[in-house]
């Protein structure tokens, strides 16, 4: 009875528009380097936390290879967050702006979408998620560059944009080194199990 069946999987290539429920953009309100860098810090930190959760979920589902990859991504994003602190000379994380951070979508642009995970996913898929996140981060700072109200903020945003572009490039190279999954990667001969 174990008819091979593809376990429900995310759509290939992660096609997606900016989430329909997007909130007002933050850039119009960003007036200082401090505020910009607070955004940068939150973006990196939330990305790190999300990757760590992804790693936990993968570990719980015995997908050690992808778990390790997410763990690695979490470390990278954590380092990015720390770099923001160092650059700014901050000894503790900055306070969130009044009313919380305002992102373009529901979440910070570098935070992975929970629903894109799959228990049989391969490093290639994980890197696709990472690539998408880096591209969104790049676009986020790009839009800050366009909307910056003063030269200082514009310059800082440009630097961040360039950094994210570098991240995109690194991930793209990483993907090139990573084997593409077979067409049947999501096939599980067993049905789901019953739990509680």
């Amino acid at each position, binding site marked *: 009875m174990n008819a091979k069946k593809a376990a*429900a999987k995310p759509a290939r290539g992660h096609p*997606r528009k900016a989430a329909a429920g997007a909130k007002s953009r933050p850039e119009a309100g960003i007036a200082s380097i401090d505020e910009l860098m607070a955004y940068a810090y939150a973006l990196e930190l939330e990305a790190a936390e999300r990757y760590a959760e992804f790693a936990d*979920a993968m570990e719980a589902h015995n997908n050690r290879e992808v778990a390790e990859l997410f763990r690695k991504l979490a470390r990278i994003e954590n380092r990015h967050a720390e770099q923001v602190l160092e650059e700014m000379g901050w000894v503790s994380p900055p306070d969130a702006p009044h009313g919380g951070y305002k992102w373009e979508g529901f979440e910070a642009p570098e935070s992975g979408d929970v629903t894109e*995970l*799959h*228990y049989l996913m391969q490093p290639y898929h994980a890197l696709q998620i990472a690539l998408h996140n880096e591209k969104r981060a790049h676009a986020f700072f790009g839009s800050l560059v366009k909307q910056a109200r003063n030269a200082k903020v514009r310059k800082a945003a440009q630097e961040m944009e360039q950094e994210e572009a570098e991240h995109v490039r690194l991930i793209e190279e990483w993907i090139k080194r990573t084997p593409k999954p077979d067409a049947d990667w999501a096939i599980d001969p067993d049905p789901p199990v019953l739990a509680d």
Partner: protein
Amino acid sequence: MTTATARPTVPISARDFKSDYNPIWCPGCGDYSVVLSFTRAFASLGLRPENTAVVSGIGCSSRIPAYLTSYGFHGVHGRSLAAAAGLKLARPDLTVVVASGDGDGYSIGGNHFMHACRRNVDMTYVVMDNHVYGMTKGQPSPTTEPDWNSKLSPGGTGVRTFHPLVIALAAGANFVARAFSGDPSGTANVLVEAIKTPGFSFVEILSPCVTFRPEQREWKNAVRPAPVGTTNDPARAARYIMTDDGFNLGILYRGERAPYQPPMGRGNKQPADLEKGFAI
């Protein structure tokens, strides 16, 4: 009853509300993000783990208490609202949040849902709705579309879906909101308001099941902030909710009904005083 005296302590962060027990849900499940929303809401409200209780029944969503550091109660299928009402009425000092799903909350627990709304005990009821029974491998729930094919109901149930928000409103819930798991901050904000509002607060969280309803990944493209604001007029709210497509997010109704809370701990007699009624 033990009531610990509050000690001056540092504020509890969202992360502190996560337990050291990692969630076990399918990778991709929307419920992961709901944990995040819970912890953010608790931290933002300045709650303390010892004075917060999360009560649940049975189902994927009901696993949530174990993933938090608050007091938790993981009871039987469909009865979480009753257990939570007992807890809150006996211990009005606690913040009580109930976690449920569309099977646990609307099907087996449907009767308690109506009466909890009606009773209006000061607690927050969170239903993670994914239109399917996940834990038992994909059977239709009360919110499943009538034509959704499954092993248990081949060709679909042919039965119309249940409309939880309108039922909550009609039954007397004091706060009715819809949120989306993919928007953890927005959901956390709704939870903050739900917990802050006295009385029975009902929050439906659309939370995709990627295993049995992979098409729900598209919910992120369907949801939108409700074009109307919060009203305190139940008739207006009902008209609006009845005509929306189930993807409008926000606090749709907030009433001013006083919560039900009999005066626990306020009697002034000793048990022996009650004997007078028996004496000849």
